Structure formats: structure tokens, C-alpha cells
């Protein structure tokens, strides 16, 4: 998860021709990750509709800039905890898209051997402590992680939705982190709704007033602009890493899709959804790269084609992967040497 590692890898993937500057290369890599996340979600949705992804699935389409902008501000030994809406975070951390997709369709080759599924994946090798299916669970896990990470000067990031600030988990953990000065960055992805309920209806006083009341520094950022997210994350991470204790970042964003697998009622207006589509994080990044960094349209299109090819490959490999066998005996407890 180190920025150095990532930019080499991603710049190569972006098909760099050396024509644009370093910043543009870095953002091309981030754009590619955002496109990958979007197309990965589209694939997950199509597989879900075909009955290949099971149970429920919570897509993050529209919210890609938050996970990508924050992950790019982290080092290899930092840690992330995310939610059931965590596909973007997992991919932004560098989890293998193949292992992830295999997990989502329940295959033995999945990152957790098919045991976890979408809501519970873990990939410690890439710094993902886990995706947590309990609202508030991610920020809690990140708080605990910070207790360990402060020994090594590393940082824990907990991503969560606007709904989570109404959980007991939030107050207890944020206060705990503040009292102990833990190196944890809380990233609230405010997408305007918790399931079908508008955030304002259940969050009097707004979101950042809550951490602010606990004397935790806060900042608010446009979650659709990966530059803005990244800049805010760099600043926040630097402060946390320097021993400033917890930091709270609210990113205003929007989810394009249903909450989970089909919403029972209509609770968002077409105009509102369209307005947010006009502020699409991928479009914004493309436009900025072209207008501010002189990246040619052909280069941007090549990026999309490259991701398309990757997705097609992912899909066919995943569908050909074996299911786990139930005949294997699984021990209940971790052995002494684990």
C-alpha cells in the first residue's frame, strides 16, 4: 500500500508514455483504479442478477474518489477498515481483483476461501483489516488497530457511512481514541442516506459537530473530486502520524445504486440522482487530467479499454474457479503457532 509501490504499479498500468508530468501520472493511476472499481461494481451487479453473487451486495458506484484518494495517502504498513460497502476500499488497498471477485462468487480461490463473502472480507497482506458488516464495526476496528500501530508510527483508517455516527460504537471509540491520542483517521463517507433514510432526518447538528465536541480535529471535503480528497487525506494523515491523535474527515458523496439488492421504496428524486451524476468522480478526474494536465483523450480512452480487458479476464477466470468443498474439516480454534 505504499504510495511509491502503488504509483510505479499504477503508472505502468496506465500505459505511461512519459508525455505528462509526475502528478498527472499519479492521477492517471488513481483514475484507473476508480474506473476499475466502477466496472468491478458493474460486473458484480450483473453477476448478482445472474445469481452468481449471492445474498446481498452493497455497491459503492459514485463513491470511488473517497477510497482511492485516501488510500493513496497511506503507506505500506498503515491499515484500513471498511464497511459492507467496501469493494472500492479493498481494490484501492491493492487487493487482487481476481481473488476478490472469486470470493464474491463463493469460490475456493477467493481471498477468504469463500467463507466471508462481500460483507466480511479481510486482506491483511494489503492492509485491509476487514470489511465489517455491522454499522460502526469498521471505525471500532480501526480504533483498536491504532493502539497497535502507534508503536510503529503507522496509522489506521476507519471508513464508515453517515449512519454510523449514530451508533454507540462511534462515541465510545472516538472518545477513547481522543483520550489515548491514538493514530486513527476516521473517514465518514456521507452519501446522504442510511438505507432509505436521509441523513438529515436522523443526524441533528450534522456530522462533524460530533467529533468536534470530543475535541477531535475535523475537515470536510468534496468526495467527488479525488484531488480534493487526496489533499485532505494527506494533511489529515500527516497530522495523525505526527502524534496529533485522531482526525475526522467527512467526505460528501453519493451512491448511484440501491442500498443493497433492490430498494423497497423510492426515496430519492430523479433530479437529485441526476444532479449527482453530473458530478461523477470519474468524469471529474478525466476532465481535470485533460484540462489541467494536457492528457490526451486517446490516453484516457486507452485506460478504459485496458480496464475493460482486465474485467473480462477477471470474469471468465472467476466463473471457471472451483467451489470450496464442504468435506474439509475446519478447526474451530487457531493453533498455537498461527
Amino acid at each position, binding site marked *: 500500500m505504499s504510495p511509491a509501490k502503488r504509483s510505479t504499479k499504477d503508472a505502468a498500468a496506465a500505459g505511461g508514455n512519459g508525455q505528462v508530468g509526475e502528478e498527472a501520472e499519479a492521477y492517471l493511476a488513481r483514475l484507473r483504479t476508480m474506473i476499475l472499481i466502477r466496472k468491478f461494481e458493474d460486473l458484480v451487479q450483473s453477476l448478482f442478477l445472474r445469481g452468481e453473487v449471492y445474498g446481498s451486495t452493497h455497491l459503492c458506484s459514485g463513491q470511488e474518489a473517497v477510497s482511492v484518494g485516501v488510500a493513496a495517502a497511506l503507506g505500506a504498513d498503515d491499515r484500513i477498515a471498511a464497511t459492507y460497502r467496501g469493494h472500492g476500499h479493498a481494490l484501492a488497498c491493492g487487493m487482487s481483483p481476481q481473488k476478490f471477485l472469486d470470493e464474491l462468487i463463493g469460490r475456493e480461490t477467493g481471498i477468504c476461501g469463500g467463507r466471508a463473502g*462481500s*460483507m466480511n472480507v479481510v486482506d491483511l497482506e494489503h492492509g485491509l483489516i476487514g470489511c465489517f458488516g*455491522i*454499522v460502526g464495526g469498521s471505525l471500532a476496528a480501526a480504533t483498536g488497530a491504532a493502539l497497535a500501530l502507534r508503536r510503529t508510527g503507522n496509522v489506521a483508517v476507519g471508513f464508515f457511512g453517515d449512519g454510523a455516527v449514530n451508533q454507540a460504537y462511534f462515541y465510545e471509540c472516538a472518545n477513547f481514541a481522543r483520550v489515548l491520542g491514538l493514530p486513527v483517521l476516521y473517514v465518514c463517507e456521507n452519501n446522504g442516506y442510511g438505507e432509505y433514510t436521509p441523513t438529515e432526518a436522523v443526524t441533528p447538528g450534522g456530522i462533524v459537530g460530533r467529533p468536534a465536541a470530543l475535541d477531535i480535529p475535523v475537515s470536510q471535503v468534496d468526495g467527488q473530486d479525488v484531488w480534493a480528497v487526496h489533499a485532505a487525506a494527506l494533511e489529515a494523515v500527516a497530522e495523525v502520524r505526527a502524534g496529533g491523535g485522531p482526525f475526522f474527515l467527512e467526505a460528501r458523496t453519493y451512491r448511484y445504486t440501491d442500498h443493497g439488492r433492490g430498494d423497497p421504496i423510492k*426515496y430519492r428524486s430523479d433530479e437529485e440522482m441526476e444532479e449527482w451524476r453530473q458530478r461523477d468522480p470519474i468524469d471529474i478526474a478525466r476532465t481535470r487530467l485533460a484540462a489541467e494536465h494536457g492528457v490526451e483523450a486517446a490516453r484516457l480512452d486507452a485506460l478504459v479499454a485496458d480496464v475493460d480487458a482486465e474485467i473480462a479476464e477477471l470474469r471468465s477466470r472467476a466463473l471457471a474457479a472451483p467451489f470450496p468443498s464442504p*468435506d474439509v474439516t475446519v478447526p474451530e480454534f487457531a493453533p498455537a503457532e498461527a
Partner: protein
Amino acid sequence: MAELEFRKAIWQALDEELARDENVIFFGEDVAKAGGVFQVTPGLRDRHGEDRVFDTPISELALSTAAFGSAVCGLRPVFEIMFADFFALAMDSLVNQAAKYWYLSNGQAPVPLVVRSAVGGGGRFGAIHSQVPAPWFQAIPGLKIVAPATPAHAKGLLKASIRDNNPVLFFEHKRLYSLSAEVDGSEPELVPLGSAETVREGSDLTIATAMKGVHDSLAAAAELATLGIDCEVIDLRTLRPLDIDAVAASVEKTGRLLVVEEGPRTGGWAGEVVASISERCLGRLDDCWRLATDDLPLPYSPPLEDAFLPGTEAIVRAVRERGGVMPEGAA
């Protein structure tokens, strides 16, 4: 004869009790405007008003404390914990306040609250959206746990739960929501808590179970009948308190007991039934055991989840492979 769907039966029970007693209120996460993620409660807010049927923040502990506090001050709250796995967040008020209050206050006020919650696996929801957390509460005196298997029972049990003067956890198995069954209007309005029902008579083996397990056991019994094994199936209907009398009466007849529980083998209610029957009927018992899940979290992948849950096939296999249960002459 009319068909009644399980989720509709629950809707009717709520609707009727809200209409009958103005002290009944109902609340939860996305239950009012949206009608709940399992679409069990649409329209109740419009029928009974938003003062009595309302949405809440995502704050399970606040839900349970709101129920407890309002219950001891005269209301009869019903609230929803969307997936029963989330009981963990609501636990303290239920365990340390609601369950103990009647006893500790020396009977000054009852705690008439009901928590409705979706339980159970089989939906590919993974380890923390599939549990049946009855065992978490099995050791808590003062709590009742209701676990219906049919639409008619769901309705009668929920109405009885709302009228009960104790905290009641009302479990709704997700795999049953879309189950429909015929009702003819002769069903009793209330099904008493703490009473089991024999849903199939048989002479060789008693199977005691609840919720989806009842349907699986009936299907297994039909299959076992073709092999010459005649099973009696008991729907426990309430997991706390258990109707041990009903199970004991059946075991007096069959001499053999299998308890089928969807949940970990260790610490579950199946173990409780087995222990109680062993105490009561030891002299009459030829065999007594349980079928439950392995002591592991529920896996996501379909072949793993299917093998993990004690469905019809597993029940048939458990009976066939059990040395000694086969009656003389059974295949």
C-alpha cells in the same frame, strides 16, 4: 380457505394490536416509511400514525433502552432489530435492565416489550447476517424467546407476545417470510407462549425443533416413513421457556429423541432440551441426541453454507446413521 403469507401474518398481528391498544407502539430502522428491509411492515405508519409507528437512527442500543424505559412507564413497545445478529449491540438493556427489572423491583412494574428480529441462514448473507442468537439469551432468566414456524402461529404468537407482560424476543426466520399456508379463520387468536405443538404423530422417534427446522423435519419424517421409521415431530414454538412437558410426553411414547437446532452445537437450546429430557425420562430413553451446526461461524459460499445447515437431508442422514434408532425391520 384463504392463504396467509408469513410476513403478512406478522403484519396483521401488529396491525391488530396497534388498533386494539393505543399503548402499543412500533419502531425500528426503516420500518415505517419504507416498510422494513424484508417488507413486513409497509403501511402501518399510515394506518396508525407516525407518533406510534416510526423510523429511528441506526442505534440499536437506543432502540432497546427506549423499549425498556417506555415499557416500565406504561407503553407496550414493539421494536425491530433488522437482523438478529445486531442484537449484540442492543444487549445490555435487554439483559441487564429489561430481563431483571420485574424481579429486582419486587414486582413494581412489568416490562411488556417485544423485539421482532429476522434470524437464520440459508440466504447467503454470511456469518453476521445469518445467526439465530437464541443461545445468547438462553441463560437470561426473565426473557421469553418465541420462534414460530407457520403463518398462523406467527400471528397468534406475536399477538400473545405483545400482550405478555415480559420482555419477549420474537424470531422470524428469513427463509419463512415468503411461506404461505392456508387458514380458515378457525385458528385461535392467541397462541400461548411456552406451549409446543405436535405437528406429526409417530411412534419410533420424537423430533423436537423450531422455525424452519419444523418444515425440514416434516419433510425428513416423510422420507423416513418410506424407510419404515415413524417420526413424531414437535414444533417447540417457544424456546424460552421450553415446553419440556410436551417433549417428555412424546418421548414416553417413542423412547427416542432428536433435537434439531439451527445454531452451534455447544450451548444451544437443543442441548437444553436433551439435558431436561435426560433428567426427566432417563429410564424410558433408548436414545437422545441433537443435530446442530458445527461450532464455527456460518460460511458464505453456497456449498459450504448448504452443508453447514441442518436441513432435511442432514436430518434423514442423522437418523439413518444413528446406531440403534432404527426400529425392528426398518430399511
